[in-house]
C-alpha cells in the first residue's frame, strides 16, 4: 500500500506545479493587453461566421472509438493470460485461441464492411 501512497502524494506535488506557474507566477510577470479582435478564434482574419461547436464531424471517429473499446478490452484479457501462460500450458493456449477466433470473426466482418478503411 505504501508504494501507492507515494504515487498519490507525488500526484499532489506534481499538480501544484502547473497551478502555481499558471495562476500565481505567470499573471505577475506576463504581458496582458487583450482586445476584442485578439480574442477571436484563430481562423482567417475576417470575423468567423460560425463556431466549431455548430459543426458536426465524421461518424468514422465514433466507429474507431467503438472498435478501440473492443480491442482494448481484448488486450486487457490477454495480459493476465500471458503472465500465467507457461503454467496454463496447451489448455490455456487453446482457450485463448478460441477467444481470439471469435474476436477475429468480428474483426474481418468490420474489415469487409469497410469500417477500417477511411476513404
Amino acid at each position, binding site marked *: 500500500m*505504501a*508504494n*501507492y*501512497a*507515494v*504515487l498519490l*502524494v*507525488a*500526484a499532489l*506535488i*506534481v*499538480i501544484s*506545479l*502547473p*497551478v502555481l*506557474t*499558471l495562476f500565481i*507566477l*505567470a499573471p505577475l*510577470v*506576463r*504581458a*496582458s*493587453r*487583450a482586445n*476584442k479582435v*485578439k*480574442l*477571436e*478564434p*484563430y*481562423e482567417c482574419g475576417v470575423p468567423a461566421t460560425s*463556431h*466549431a*461547436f455548430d*459543426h458536426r*464531424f465524421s461518424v468514422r*471517429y465514433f466507429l*474507431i*472509438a467503438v*472498435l*478501440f473499446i473492443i*480491442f*482494448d478490452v481484448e*488486450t486487457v484479457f*490477454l*495480459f493476465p493470460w*500471458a*503472465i*500465467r*501462460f*507457461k503454467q496454463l500450458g*496447451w489448455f490455456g*493456449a487453446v482457450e485463448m485461441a478460441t477467444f*481470439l477466433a471469435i474476436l*477475429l470473426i468480428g474483426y474481418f466482418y468490420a*474489415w469487409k464492411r469497410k469500417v*477500417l*478503411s*477511411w476513404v
Partner: protein
Amino acid sequence: MNPWMLYLVWPLIKFLIAFVIVQVIVAAMNWIERRVLGLIQARLGPNRVGPWGLLQIVADPIKFLLKEDIVPSSAEKIAYFLGPMLPLVPAFIVFCLIPFGPPPTFAVTHTNVGLLLILALTSTGVYGIILGGWASNNKYSLMGGLRSAAQMVSYEVPFGLSIVGVLMLCGSLDLVHIINYQAHHVWNVFPQLIAAFIFFVSMNAENNRTPFDLPEAESELVAGYHTEYSAMKFAFFMLAEYSAMLVNCCLMVSLFLGGWTLAIGGYGLTTATLKSMGFMGGLLGTVIFVVKVMTFMMIYIWFRATFPRFRFDQLMDLGWKWMIPLALINIFVTGIVVLAAPEMIINGSVVPVGETILAVAGAATVALTLFLIMKPRAHAPKVIHASRVSEA
C-alpha cells in the same frame, strides 16, 4: 528506520530528484532536437543564446512565462484550462514507477503491477488533447483533436498487443523482473523482434511524432489541437508530450533492451553484479539506462528529419490492417514455440531452444520483408526529369 521515512519521505525525495532530472532532459531535448535537426539539414540551428546556444534551454521557459496568455472569448473556459494541465500529472508521476537502476535505491517505488499502471497512466494522455482541441472552439483545433484522438486510440491497440509477447516470455508485469529475466536469458528484442518493431512504430504514433504527426499537420490544420494555446499552456502541452516520449523510450528499453543491465545469459553486468559494486554500481546501471533511453530519443529526432508525413487513411490502414494482425500473429507464434520447445538442459547448462527459434524466425521475417521491399520491380515506372516534363 522510521517507517514514515522509509516508505514516504525517501521515495518522495527520490521522486523529486528524478523529476528535476527529467525536467532538465525535457528542456534540453528541445534544444537538442532543433540543433540535431539543423545539423541533419546542413544548417546551424539555435546557436545565438550562450555558448552553442545552450542557454536556449533557459531562455525558452522565460519566454513562455512572459508571453501574453490569450484565452479565446468563445472557448469553453474550464475544459480549456484543464486540457493542458490534465495530461501533465500522469505524464510526470509515471516516473515513480520506472526503475532507472537496480532497485530499491534507484527506483522510486516498486509494485508488482508496475507495467499495467504505467500503461494505464500513459493512455490518459489522449484526454488532454481531446479536451483542449474541443474546448478551444476553433475548427482547426477540433479537427486536430479528433484526428489525434483517433490516431492515439488506434495505435493503443498494437501498443498493448506487442507487450503481450514479452509478458508470455517473462511471466510478470513487474519491470524489475522483466529486466532481470532479460539479463539471465537474452534481450527480448531478439526473440520478440517483430513485437519490438510494432512497439516502436506504435510509440511513434502514440506521441504524434513524424511520420505520424498528422494532428499537427501545419499545412492543413495550422497547429492542430494547440492552435489556440499560447504561453504557459502551450508549454504544458510540450512538456507532457516530451515526458510521454521519454516514458515510452524507458518502456522500450526496459521491455526489449535489458534496462539497466548489460548482460546475456547471466554473464556481464547483471543486477547482482551491479549491486555487489555498491552505490557506484547502481550509478553505473543508471548511466547505462540513460544512454539507452537517449539513443531512442535521438532515433525520434532522426525519424523526424528523415520521413515524410503519412496521409490519414494510410495511417489508419497501417494501424488497423497491418499492425494489429501482425501483433496477433506474433502472439500466436510466440505461444506455439514457447509451449512446443521449452528450455532444455544439455550438459548442465540451460539452452533456450524456444527463444532461439523465435529469434531466427523474427530475423527471417525481417530479411524477407526487406528483400520484398528492395527487390527491383519488373516494370519500374519511367522517371522523367523535372526539366523535361514538357517533352514527355
